[in-house]
């Protein structure tokens, strides 16, 4: 459904834009029909940048984003509108997604004016009610309210309902549940999982490994704009190969396992390197060859990692 090929985003930074920051560097992955793919990475890994490039909110520097066979950057006006009818995003902070001056259901009205001007009001109200019920909200309690009168979970679900009204095929969910409380976040997560069975593909962007495992079919591990490992979720979580993925899996606090008593060496952040492995400075296994950029190598079906030590690891 969505194919990302060698996507890069370069920002000009420093005085007079003299330096380059590779926020996303030659990232490729695919999202199939009815599939949930999670993009996992720490802050600064470029995961949100990828989401925003898919949504066309920021321009890409090179590479291609192909949706159902069409390159998205070639879309203009009518075709672009058609693209947004299929692809929508929901973001981290539900409170800042709304204009606080207007009532929150204005987001539905905007959809009607823009995409469905010919539908009559009664039919539209029914559609809105159905969409709200689909996301588990009671229309009476959420319609005609201002954003501050609703909870974060309700607002987040309203945004998903808004996306549903368009009958979208692809949703970019950028940290949608990070702001929600533990007791309500799982409901939103279940909602996304249910939507999958209605034919929706989801790009689930998160830093929380547990949430990623819960919902996704495929996972992509990002670090400083590079894909270090990608593949079937179970394989990545149960038998990670890349040293960074291994570190992530042990360092994430879990309820079923205590941390192993290793002292993690924390170093100051180093700027993204242009060549060489991005994890070189922190990697315990780094050796001379790591000054060259490793490429993604397939380990088994639907599981690949980018590390020079990979042949040794597979053997041993």
């Amino acid at each position: 459904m969505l194919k990302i090929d060698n996507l890069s985003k370069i920002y000009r930074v420093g005085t007079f834009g003299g330096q380059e920051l590779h926020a996303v560097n030659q990232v490729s992955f695919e999202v199939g029909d009815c599939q949930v793919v999670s993009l996992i990475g720490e802050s600064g890994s470029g995961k949100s940048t990828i989401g925003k490039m898919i949504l066309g909110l920021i321009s890409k520097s090179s590479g291609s984003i192909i949706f159902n066979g069409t390159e998205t950057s070639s879309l203009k006006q009518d075709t672009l509108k058609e693209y947004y009818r299929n692809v929508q995003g929901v973001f981290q902070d539900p409170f800042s997604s709304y204009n606080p001056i207007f009532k929150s259901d204005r987001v539905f009205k905007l959809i009607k004016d823009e995409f469905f001007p010919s539908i009559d009001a009664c039919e539209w109200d029914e559609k809105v009610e159905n969409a709200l019920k689909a996301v588990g909200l009671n229309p009476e309690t959420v319609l005609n309210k201002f954003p501050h009168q609703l909870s974060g979970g309700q607002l987040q679900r309203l945004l998903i309902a808004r996306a549903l009204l368009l009958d979208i095929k692809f949703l970019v969910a950028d940290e949608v549940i990070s702001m929600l409380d533990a007791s309500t976040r799982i409901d939103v997560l279940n909602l996304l999982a249910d939507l999958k069975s209605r034919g929706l593909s989801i790009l689930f962007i998160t830093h929380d490994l547990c949430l990623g495992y819960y919902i996704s079919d495929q996972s992509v591990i990002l670090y400083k704009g590079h894909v270090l490992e990608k593949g079937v979720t179970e394989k990545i979580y149960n038998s990670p190969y890349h040293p960074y993925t291994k570190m992530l899996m042990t360092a994430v606090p879990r309820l079923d396992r205590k941390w192993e008593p290793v002292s993690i060496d924390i170093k100051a952040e180093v700027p993204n390197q242009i060549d060489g492995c991005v994890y070189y400075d922190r990697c315990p296994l780094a050796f001379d060859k790591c000054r060259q950029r490793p490429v993604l190598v397939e380990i088994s079906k639907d599981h690949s990692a980018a590390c020079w030590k990979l042949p040794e690891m597979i053997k041993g």
Partner: protein
Amino acid sequence: MSLQVVNLRVFYQTLRGDVHALDGATFSIADGEIMGLAGESGCGKTTLGYSLIHLTLPKKFVDGWVKLDGENLPIGDTDRMEAFRFKKVSIIPQYAMSAMNPTRKIGKMTSELLESRKVRFNDILPELKRRLDLVKLPQDVLGMYPIELSGGMKQRMVMVLSTLLNPSLLIADEVTSALDVSTQQAVSEMLVEFRDHEFVKSMIVITHDISILYQIADSILVMYAGKPAEKASTTTIINSPLHPYTRLLISSLPKVGVKYSSQRLSGIPGNPPLLLDPPAGCRFRSRCPAAFAKCSQEPPFVEVKKGHYVACWKERGIYA
């Protein structure tokens, strides 16, 4: 008994009346204990933490008392608390990233901070350097501005600063939430190390992330809507909680190895009550699957087993 809090009530003053943000907290922390304070947003955990060190408007002290090392802590009196702050009670604030003065070099700021407490910087300097080594910060940071440090380094610098005068009680408010997972582990383990080195006697770690508490805390106090719901040792809270809220909360957390297709988790229906005019009785009643007639009275926070406190009529019935 290092810290003892009895029936502490702190309200927020608003134009529409008092918000009962903290309504009767009773607990104690032993020497050397790291107590995790967990709960959802708006449950009063940060209010409780800040009340113990800096209680200012719109917060209003209503009732209760606090004892630290057998001494009364005058938390309702901002001026008298001044003698305790930083020396006896210290805090690592939520946004440690922006806690340091950006216009001062870190060493200069530290010396000003110490002199405001009538402590000479040069007396402390050797100890300060030792502690910087301990948290793996180069000693040069004292000559740097905060902007030159990364987020994790700033966090560690603030940790060293906050504990410099060996306070009896340290309040750590969401110290790890803005950090990356690897830094998060290192910083959390340093908190434990600070306790092991006896830089601080006891600690309250406030966080919404229970899995962090499972790694570092000795005991956990779970709060709901301004009241303590359950307090017990960490393993008890995670593995055999008694309060229905704690049970539902723990079971709603996804773990690695749990997928929605094989094991579907469920959240807690409903929302916490508004604290402007809180309902009588148990505040979890409207969302509680085990609620019955007696829940319209307020359940007391009682010890049902050694070191295990619960505020629930059902649980009390079992053990009474």
